[in-house]
C-alpha cells in the first residue's frame, strides 16, 4: 500500500505552474515529513507551550493587555482543537479495542494517530450541501449556536492556579450557562433540516438536556457548599496538599455527588447510554443528519469540546484540579489535562460498553432516580457540614482508602488487559496489519 495513482488532470496557465511546484515540493518533502512527522508535531506543540510560557513570564508586563489576550485566546482555541482531535482519534481506538478490533492503524504510522487530521481535511473539502427545502439562514446558524458557547466555557476554566484567562466570582455557573445554550443549537439543527427524523432527534435531545441540567446543577451545589465559593480557582486552591484533600473524599455525600454529576454530564454531552439524539442505529444521525462537511465538523467539535469541558469541571470540583496527588511540587496544568483526559477516556469506555436506553427510560432515570438522590445528597451534605465535621479524619481515611482501592482495581484490570492483549483483541487482526 505504498503509492496511489492519481488520475491525470491537465492544468493550464497559472494552475499548471502551481501544480508543478506542488508536485516537486511533495516529492521532496514527503519522505522527510513521513519520517519526522512525529517530531514535527510534538515539536510544534512543545514550542507553542514554551512560547506561551515565555510570553507569560517575560513579556507580560511589557505589552498591552490586548496582545496578551489575543495570544491566550489563540492558545485556548488551539488547545480545544487539539482536545477534539485527540478525542476523535481516541474514540475510534477505544471503540475498536473494546470491539476486538484495532481501529485506525495506518495514517501517520503508529496506531493511526494522524487519523483526525486526515478526517478534518476530508471534511473540509466536501461539497457544501444544504437541503433545498431547509430554512437557509437558520440551517447555517445552527452549528455556530452549538459550538461557540462551548468554546466560551473555556474562558473561565483554570488549568493551574494562575493559568486562567478570566477569573470570575461565578465561573462555575458560567460554565453551566454556556453548556445550557447548546440546547438551542441542536433544536435549530433539527428543525432547519426540514426532515422528520432530524426533528425527532432534536426534540428528544432537548428534553434530555434540559432535564439533566437539574441533577447536574444540584450535585455541583454540594461541593460549592463545602468550599463556600462558586469560583473555580477557589475550589482548586482548597484542594491542595495531597489526594486526601480532594473534595471527593471529604464527605460521603461528596463522594456520591461526583458519580451523580458524572452521570448527569454524560447525559448533558449526549453520550451513551444517553445518546438517543444521535442514535446511530435508529435515526441515521439524529439532528445532524443533513449536515455535511464543515458544518458537521462544527457539531462534532462541539461534542468533544463539551466532553472535555464537563470532565474539566469534574476534575476541578471533585478531583483536585491541577493539584498532584502526592504533594504540591508538580501541581500544574499537566496534572489537570491528565485527569481531564482520563475522565474523557472513561466516558468513551462507558459509551462502548453500555446499551442505549429509550427516551422514556432516560426521563424516568432523571426524574425518578437521579433527582431525588441528588436532593438527598444536598440535604445530607448541609446537615453534615453543620453537625458532622468532627468525623473528618475518619471519613478522609475511609473514603481515601476507597479511592486508592478503586485506582488499584483499575490498574489491575489494565494490567490484565495489557498482558492478555493478544488473546483479547484477536491475533488475526494483529498479525496482518502494519504498526501493530
Amino acid at each position: 500500500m505504498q503509492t496511489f495513482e492519481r488520475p491525470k488532470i491537465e492544468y493550464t496557465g497559472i494552475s499548471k505552474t502551481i501544480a508543478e511546484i506542488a508536485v516537486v515540493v511533495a516529492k521532496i518533502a514527503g519522505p522527510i515529513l513521513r519520517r519526522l512527522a512525529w517530531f514535527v508535531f510534538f515539536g510544534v506543540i512543545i514550542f507553542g507551550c514554551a512560547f506561551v510560557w515565555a510570553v507569560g513570564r517575560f513579556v507580560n508586563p511589557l505589552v498591552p493587555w490586548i496582545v496578551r489576550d489575543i495570544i491566550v485566546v489563540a492558545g485556548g482555541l488551539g488547545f480545544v482543537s487539539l482536545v477534539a482531535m485527540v478525542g476523535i482519534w481516541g474514540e475510534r481506538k477505544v471503540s475498536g479495542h473494546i470491539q476486538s478490533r484495532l481501529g485506525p492503524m495506518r495514517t501517520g504510522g503508529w496506531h493511526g494517530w494522524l487519523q483526525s487530521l486526515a478526517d478534518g481535511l476530508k471534511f473540509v473539502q466536501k461539497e457544501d450541501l444544504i437541503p433545498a427545502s431547509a430554512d437557509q439562514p437558520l440551517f447555517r446558524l445552527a452549528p455556530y449556536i452549538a459550538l461557540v458557547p462551548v468554546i466560551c466555557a473555556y474562558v473561565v476554566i483554570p488549568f493551574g492556579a494562575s493559568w486562567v484567562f478570566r477569573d470570575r466570582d461565578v465561573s462555575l455557573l458560567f460554565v453551566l450557562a454556556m453548556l445550557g445554550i447548546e440546547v438551542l443549537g441542536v433544536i435549530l439543527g433539527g428543525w432547519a433540516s426540514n426532515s422528520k427524523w432530524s426533528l425527532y432527534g432534536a426534540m428528544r435531545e432537548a428534553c434530555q438536556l434540559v432535564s439533566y441540567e437539574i441533577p447536574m446543577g444540584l450535585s455541583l451545589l454540594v461541593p460549592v457548599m463545602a468550599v463556600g465559593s462558586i469560583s473555580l480557582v477557589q475550589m482548586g486552591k482548597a484542594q491542595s496538599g495531597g489526594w486526601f484533600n480532594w473534595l471527593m473524599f471529604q464527605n460521603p455525600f461528596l463522594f456520591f455527588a461526583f458519580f451523580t454529576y458524572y452521570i448527569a454530564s454524560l447525559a448533558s454531552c449526549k453520550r451513551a447510554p444517553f445518546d438517543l439524539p444521535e442514535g446511530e442505529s435508529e435515526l441515521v444521525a439524529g439532528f445532524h443528519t443533513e449536515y455535511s462537511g464543515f458544518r458537521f465538523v462544527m457539531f462534532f467539535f462541539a461534542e468533544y469540546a463539551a466532553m472535555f469541558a464537563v470532565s474539566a469541571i469534574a476534575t476541578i470540583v471533585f478531583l483536585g484540579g491541577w493539584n498532584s496527588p502526592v504533594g504540591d511540587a508538580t501541581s500544574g496544568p499537566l496534572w489537570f489535562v491528565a485527569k481531564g483526559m482520563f475522565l474523557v477516556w472513561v466516558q468513551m469506555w462507558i459509551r462502548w460498553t453500555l446499551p442505549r436506553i429509550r427516551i422514556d427510560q432516560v426521563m424516568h432515570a432523571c426524574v425518578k432516580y437521579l433527582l431525588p438522590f441528588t436532593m438527598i445528597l444536598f440535604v445530607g451534605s448541609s446537615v453534615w457540614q453543620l453537625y458532622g465535621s468532627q468525623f473528618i479524619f475518619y471519613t478522609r481515611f475511609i473514603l481515601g482508602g476507597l479511592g486508592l482501592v478503586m485506582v488499584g482495581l483499575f490498574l489491575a484490570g489494565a494490567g490484565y488487559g495489557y498482558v492478555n492483549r493478544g488473546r483479547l483483541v484477536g491475533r488475526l487482526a494483529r498479525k496482518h496489519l502494519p504498526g501493530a
Partner: protein
Amino acid sequence: MIETILFYIFAMIMVVSGLAILVSTNIVRMAYWLIGMLLAVAGIYFLLGAYFLGVVQIIVYVGGVAVLVVFGVMLTSRQLASQLLPRAWEVVWLICVTGIFLAGLVRMILKGPWAGNVKQSPQTVAEIGRSLLGNFIGPFELASVLLLVVLLGAAYLARPRVPTLGIKK
C-alpha cells in the same frame, strides 16, 4: 473606551432584534431573534458588573424560557398559516402610538439629574447571598412556593388529553 464600544454593540443587537421581530413573519425566526436579545441583555449585565445576574439570565432565560418558547413554536406551528400583514394605516397608527410613548419616556429620563449617579464597584456573589437570605427572605420563600404552584399548574394545564366520545374533557 472598550465599555462604550461594547455597550453600543449590545444595544445595537437588542434594537435590531426587536425591529427584526416586528418585521418578520416567520415565528421560528422570531424565537431566535428573541434569543439574540436575551444574550445581548446578559452581555449588558456583564458590562454592568452584575456577573451573577448575567449568568442567571443565561441559565434561566436562554436555557429555560427560550427553549420553552421554541418548543411552543414547534408544537403549534404545524399549519404555518399566513400571517396577515398589517395594513398601511395600522402601521402608521402603531408608529404614532409607540413614538409618542417613547418620546415621553425619553424626555422624562433626560429631564433631571438622577440622585446618586455614582458608579459603585461590582458587588460580589456573597453580598447577593446575604441580601437574599437577609432582607429578601420573604420573597425568596414565596418565590419557591410560587415555582411549585407553577410547576403543578403548567403540568396540569398541558396534560395530554385522550379523545373520548365527548363525555368528559
